[in-house]
Structures are given as structure tokens and as C-alpha cells.
């Protein structure tokens, strides 16, 4: 059963376990490829993670002159192939969410590859494996659909990937609760 990464943004407690876990994935060379942001840093402690959403039509790959960014058959948009990336940084400018990172010393772009050596075998990515607050989950489409029913309060407040994103993505993002003034029952 194909599973995907599913983000329930407001659960985030800002522990940054996902960043630490990301560094430990095979192939990540101890550097994390994801982000955690304070939503309103001067006022409260709400945080939200931000990671590559693995676009169905990835701007990063479309803008790459070297065809260094490959799309895996699972839909994951991979990190730059080390022997192909020519270091132009087009991808960093193209990504609508500012995800790809660039190492100037190594002349190499690196980005989330959805821990492809794990997810291609159905094992959840590192970030979802460690997230203690169920912000990052690894779910089947059916489970995501059930979530939708669970949170569907008949008030149009199911906030999910579109139209809050720029295009369809393989990772699904959701914000079903407190930030919209909805009490959420776990």
C-alpha cells in the first residue's frame, strides 16, 4: 500500500527532532534538509515544519540545466546527482518554497529525497519516524481521507494542500485545528 508523508502543521512543538533525524539518513552526510519555523517569533511559541513537498511538476527539476534532479518512480523528487550538478543554483531560485540548499565548497545542491532508500521500501522517512507530536506522519491515501472526514466540520475549514500551495504535491499538508479557531479532538 503506497503511503505518503502527511503534515499536520499545528501539532508541531518545535523540538526539531525531524532536523536531527534528517542528518542521520543514509546519504544525507549528516546535514539536514528540512526546516522548522516560528510562526510569530516575537509573540508565541507556535512552530511549523517546512520540507520539500515533492511537487508533481517540480520547478526545481524543470529549471535544472544538467538534469541532475531525478524524479523517482515513487514520485519523490531526488537530491542532485553528485556527478551531474554543475552548481548553477537555478533550482534554489525556482523552488516556490525555497527548499534546495546549496554547498558552495562542494559546488553541489542537496535537498530532501524523502529518504528514498527507506521510502522506496515502504519504510517511513526519518523525520516522520521520530516526530513525537504526530506533525509528520506516514499514511495511506485512505488514512488521509479518514482524517479529512474526522476533521470535516462542515464549515469549509479543512485546510489542505491546495490552494495553499502552488501546485499538486506528493506530500500532503494539512492544518485542521487551533490556528483556525477549531478545537481539535485527538
Amino acid at each position, binding site marked *: 500500500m503506497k503511503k505518503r508523508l502527511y503534515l499536520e502543521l499545528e501539532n508541531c512543538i518545535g523540538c526539531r527532532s525531524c532536523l536531527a533525524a534528517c542528518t542521520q539518513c543514509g546519504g544525507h552526510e549528516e546535514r539536514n534538509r528540512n526546516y522548522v519555523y516560528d510562526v510569530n517569533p516575537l509573540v508565541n511559541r507556535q512552530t511549523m515544519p517546512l520540507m520539500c513537498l515533492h511537487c508533481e511538476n517540480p520547478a526545481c527539476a524543470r529549471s535544472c540545466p544538467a538534469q541532475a534532479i531525478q524524479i523517482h518512480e515513487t514520485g519523490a523528487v531526488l537530491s542532485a546527482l553528485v556527478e551531474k550538478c554543475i552548481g*548553477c543554483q537555478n533550482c534554489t531560485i*525556482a523552488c516556490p518554497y525555497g527548499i534546495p540548499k546549496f554547498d558552495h565548497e*562542494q559546488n553541489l545542491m542537496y535537498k530532501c529525497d524523502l529518504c528514498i532508500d527507506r521510502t522506496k521500501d515502504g519504510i517511513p522517512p526519518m523525520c516522520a519516524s521520530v516526530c513525537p507530536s504526530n506533525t509528520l506522519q506516514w499514511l495511506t491515501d485512505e488514512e488521509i481521507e479518514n482524517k479529512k472526514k474526522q476533521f470535516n466540520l462542515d464549515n469549509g475549514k479543512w485546510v489542505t494542500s491546495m490552494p495553499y500551495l502552488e501546485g499538486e504535491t506528493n506530500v500532503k499538508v494539512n492544518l485542521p485545528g487551533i490556528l483556525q479557531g477549531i478545537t481539535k479532538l485527538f
Partner: protein
Amino acid sequence: MQAKAAVNQKPGNTLNNAFASHFAKSMFLSVTALAILSFIGTRMFTHVDLNLYGYMVGTIVFIGGFFYRFIAWGERPPTKLILKKGLKLLFRKSTPKTSVEHLATYNFIWNRGIYRWTQHVLIGWGCILSCFVTFPLVFGWMYFTMDDNGHYNIIAMGMKVMTVPADGIIANLSYNALNITAVMVIAGVCMALYRRLKNMQARAEQKFLYDFLPLYMLLLVSITGLALTFMNIFLHGAGQPAMSLIHQWSVIITLIYLPFGKLAHIPFRPMSVLARNYREHYAEQGMKECKVCGDQFVSVEQSKDVVDVLGVNAIEFKAKEGHHLAEMCLPCRRKYRIAQFSGFPTHEVKVKEANQNAKG
């Protein structure tokens, strides 16, 4: 598309019109060039080494695959842009230095790790040096003659370049050049294979055809090459004809594979010099300021180019504030996305983003 291209063609460009495609033209020109070079090099085909005939056919098939692949690739909008603008900027002061660092000494691979650098120097230079020796021999651009007095003449393009004693250092180096490079390649490939066993980094994302085949092919070429020498010296040539065929076959397969798999980076890579020049030149011309924080984060030209390339792909990232998303610096673009989710304008809070680098 086809019809449009035909209408747009400039009149009077007879050479281009004479060929059905770029492919046919490039193919024709290179084969002609090879033939002419061989003609001159072999003093009108009087010094052709027919044992090397298979290589000649292999090279010609390789050139076909090469152009097929590269013309398709050069037509992609982002590739075309960097190629076009990069070639115009080829003669910058920094070009020689960048080229050496990117294409000969591989400083950036050093920064990825000394192991990876050593591995690549062994494989890369092993192959490049082998080609420097082999190709001139195959196409007759270089050959050796022996004088009566025990001296070798090295003849390049039909002219005598050097006369060396047959048992001298230079002579020995040239007899053994291919053995030395074969050992380099074998060592490098073994390092690459060992890394796949030991290091999960190299294990992720690997496919047999893309990742292992080129390594095994390089190994096969080098080992059969060395075996030839071994048979010559220790077995008085026994088994040589068979081994020679296997060797020839492995080289030809490698050449034919080259434009399609991992090894395609060899002819692609010089583009990294173009990309560097492009970035340096246009950064001097003017930098783009982030629409939110005002930081200069990319050249105006590249920003425009990327927006155009995305446009060609029917990708249009308009922020509701009116600018393109690519006109925000990376931290602001990320905060802007958080703002879209939460409804609170995170990107407008004048606080530097928290440290985003976990230390593993």
C-alpha cells in the same frame, strides 16, 4: 512545433538546410573530421593498424549516441540558456583558473571528502590519460617507428616529434602508459565499490544500469587490458587473440554506453565552468533584491532567466502581492509559505530565521 520551426528558419542558411537535423549535420562533420585527421596522421592511410578496426567502428557509433543525447539535452530551455550565455562569457579572466579547478584538479570533490577525491582522480585521470594514448594510435595520429640503432621515433600527425632510446625512461613510460593507467582505474573503481559496501550514502538511490554497470565496465576494460600485457610478457602471447577481442568488445560497449549512463557526466561537466562564469558575470552586472527583506540573493539576470524557464514549462508562481515567488530570497520564501498556512505574515516579522542546521 515542426511547422513553426520551419517557418522561423532564417533564409540563406544553406549548410543548416542541407541536413535533415542538427544530429545529421554534427554526425557528418565529426566523421569527416575524423577521416581527414586519420588521413593526414597515417600519411594517406599507409600506416593503418587493422587490429584496431573495431575501435574505429566503436568510436563512430559512440559519436552517433553522443550527438543524439546531447542535442536532445541542449534543446531543454534551462540548458540552452546556460550554454548560450555561458559560451558568450567563455573568455573571462577567471576561466583558466575555474577550468583547472573544475575539470583537472577537482577541488570541489576534495571538499566532499579526500576519499572521494582520490577515487575520482584515479578513475578520471586514468581514463583521460588512456584516451590520450589510445585514440591517436587507433586513428593513426600517432605511431612509432624503430631505427636500426635501437632508437624509437615517436611520430605524431605524420611528423617526427621525438627520438628516444628504446630502453630509456620515456620509451618505457610509453610502453607502459596503458598499464599504469589501467592500475589507476582499477584502484579507483575498487575504491568506489568499497564505498558502496561501507557507506550508506553511496548505497542510496543506486540502480544497476546507472550505478554499477559503468564501474564494472571500467573494471573489465582495465583488467583485460592488463591481461594482454601479462600474456605478452609471461605467456609469450598465448591467448592473446581471444583476450584482445574481449578487451576490444568491452571498450566498445563502454563507449556506446557512455552518452547514456553515469559516464555521461564526462562530456557534460565542462558546463560547470560556463555556469560559474554566468553566475560571476551577471552578479557583477547587478544583483536582485529580495522583495521582502531587500537582501541581494541572486543576479538580476539569473532571476529573470529562471522565471522565463519556468514560464516555458507553464509554471507561474505569482504571489498575491504581485511579484513572482522567485523574487524573494530563500528564507523569506520559506517564511512566506508558513504565512500562507497560518494566515500570519511571518515573513514580515523582522527576525532572522532561527538556526536551521542541526548538527548530526
